[in-house]
């Protein structure tokens, strides 16, 4: 049992090292998409009010890395951090990757995810609520998150729709 636990920890450590090595291109793509969105739709960020320059840490369950999101200001962008990194942030949001993406595009009901304990939040709850309401109003898609446009954008959004339908069907049969 202890050996299996050690092996799993080592595998996670290896995955973290690999993802941290890939950090620069991922940060570049995500940050560029965020800045492009800010230029294209500045009204989206108005809803963040006082939290426009705050940093939020998003942590997918099972992932060895976390994402530090700063929507606006001098340090606007997305940084990839180690999961246990505790550098200053206004709030931390944790949950399954699918649920986190669902919160991003508004296809998941955040309150229901909180009631069911699928999503865990800590830190400044006012900031979390401002971020949630901002994303809700923004009507964003996965393509917006990745900065895609044209046919690539349609393909990304179709892929998400297909994955969700497949997941729902699987849940219905479970």
């Amino acid at each position, binding site marked *: 049992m202890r050996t299996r636990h050690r092996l799993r920890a080592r595998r996670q450590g290896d995955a973290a090292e690999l993802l941290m090595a890939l950090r620069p291109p991922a940060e570049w793509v995500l940050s560029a998409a965020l800045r492009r969105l800010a230029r294209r739709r500045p009204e989206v960020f108005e*809803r*963040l*009010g006082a*939290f426009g320059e705050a940093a939020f840490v998003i942590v997918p369950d099972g992932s060895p890395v976390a994402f530090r999101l700063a929507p606006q200001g001098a340090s606007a962008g997305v940084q990839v951090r180690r999961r246990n990194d505790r550098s200053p942030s206004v709030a931390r949001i944790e949950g399954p990757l699918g649920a986190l993406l*669902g919160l991003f595009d*508004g*296809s*998941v*009901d*955040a*309150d*229901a995810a*909180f*009631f*069911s*304990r699928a999503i*865990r*939040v*800590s830190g*400044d*709850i*006012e*900031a*979390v*609520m*401002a*971020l*949630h*309401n*901002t994303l*809700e*109003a*923004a*009507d964003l898609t996965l393509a917006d998150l990745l900065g895609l446009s044209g046919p690539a954008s349609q393909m990304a959004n179709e892929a998400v729709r297909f994955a969700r339908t497949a997941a729902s069907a699987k849940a219905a049969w479970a």
Partner: protein
Amino acid sequence: MGSIELVCPAGSPAMLRAAIEAGADSVYCGLRDETNARNFPGLNFSPAELKAAAAWAHDRGGKVLVAVNTFARAGEVDAWRASVDSAAAAGADAIIVADLGVLAYAQAQHPGLRLHLSVQAAAGSAEAIAFYAQAYGVKRVVLPRVLSAPEIAALVRETDVEVEAFVYGGLCVMAEGRCALSSYATGKSPNLAGVCSPPEAVSLEETDGLLTPRLGGFMIDQVAPGTAAGYPTLCKGRFEAEGTASHLFEDPTSLNAMALLAELRTAGVRAVKIEGRQRGKAYVARVAGAFRAALDALDRGETTAPYEARLTGLAEGGRETAGAYRKAWR
């Protein structure tokens, strides 16, 4: 529209569109300030957004009802008057008001603007409703969530004012508009500031799956790992009395009165309302869709039973109740 109007919540233009597209006849929303009872960060409409959203809804046959339903602070009534003016300028089909001064202002300044009495006014008798109708020309009353279905039927027989009743979403245990629990713990109340349990006063701590919510520094519950949680409000908290921990004020559950739609229609209820402007697009699309299907089934003379399980998983604390409509505790 069928025999009953379906009124759904909208916390943003995107949520308004989702509600109408899912089958809402009307949406209710508020401006981005303390003049409405969902004054949460990032939520609600600017005056320009409200105008555009109203035009969008009207093009699709939908109505927009604007909540200006908190109580104006003495000496600072300008914000409430400005909200009434913004709603009228946006082309709102009605405003939803609780405060006598705001009602008087709206009636005097915008005589053509339809007035609905908010649930916050807690008008639960024919005499109270008649007063609002005679004094301010109120055309519809949103009933407080403390009446049973037979009590509603009796009330409708005694009034000419349209009656709107909540059928889904969060519940308040106190007489509407008179709760001081949030104010006691945080200094802010839904009645005056438009926020119950303001998020800046909430902290959530989770250790090994044990969730500890605090409000204004008061620990209000400890939720065991894997157990469904509720909103971090004092009324949904769990407290120890005489050695036993329990929900002293109210269990964390959501109202679901879909099974009572036929009874409410027979009682003469004109509109049914969904709570939850703070919830979002996914919520309103699912709830509006389920209630649209149920109301259409009723109009076809069919049962609502097939649609009653469609809302599983949305409820606070993972549980639903028919609330005061059935008054099972009596």
